[in-house]
């Protein structure tokens, strides 16, 4: 079992959980990210995850290994969906087993936080008003457009 995987198929938590079982572990913490029907006030119909796979796999595995080392966890695994997802579908699953619950919770939280910041995966939301957007990419593009506008006027 690799420490970080990408999947174009529906995620199957019971399988990952089974593979993390360990008689030295007293605590096991999981986090699941589900596709919500709303984001920032807009109704979401479905979404799409795109990944730069070779680097996502490397960076994701580094994060899981860091979490294990930093918190003294025994076993950890994270898997992220790619492709089209419906509302309520599982987008990401993290599971960590550790001797005690402090380490299990802390390592699980570390992994999901770092994955969201560091792994090259992008989310495109499709809204009920017909619009769609690439998560927080849109803001930076608008910002760039605003930067360009004045310089065009100056030219």
């Amino acid at each position, binding site marked *: 079992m690799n420490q970080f995987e990408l999947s174009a198929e529906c995620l199957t938590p019971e399988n990952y959980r089974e593979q993390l079982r360990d008689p030295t572990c007293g605590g096991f913490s999981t986090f699941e990210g589900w596709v919500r029907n709303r984001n920032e006030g807009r109704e979401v119909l479905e979404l799409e995850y795109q990944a*730069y796979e070779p680097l996502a796999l490397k960076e994701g595995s580094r994060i899981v290994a860091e979490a294990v080392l930093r918190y003294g966890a025994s076993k950890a695994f994270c898997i992220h969906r790619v492709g089209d997802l419906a509302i309520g579908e599982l987008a990401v699953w993290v599971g960590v087993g550790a001797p005690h619950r402090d380490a299990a919770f802390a390592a699980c939280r570390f992994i999901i936080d770092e994955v969201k910041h560091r792994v090259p995966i992008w989310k495109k939301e499709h809204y009920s008003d017909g619009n769609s957007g690439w*998560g927080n*990419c849109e803001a930076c593009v608008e910002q760039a457009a605003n930067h360009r506008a004045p310089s065009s006027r100056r030219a």
Partner: protein
Amino acid sequence: MARRKLRIEYFAILRERAGVDGEELDTEAGTPAELFAELSERYPFPEPDRLKVAVNDEFSDWQAPLADGDFVVFIPPVAGG
């Protein structure tokens, strides 16, 4: 001036703006920063300050030298999870 052949792949908003998944480029750009500036002349790309860049599937410095045959990916703000 030295020219090099680079392969570029686009993701997310950059793929939409470029209108292609990727391309081969024969260019004088010697760093990812120079390459991005060149591409920004052709495509309505965002400013590079919130982007990262990877060369040959590893994160790279914007000023690292590019070599012939390098594979370059610009990385807009990620949004997994």
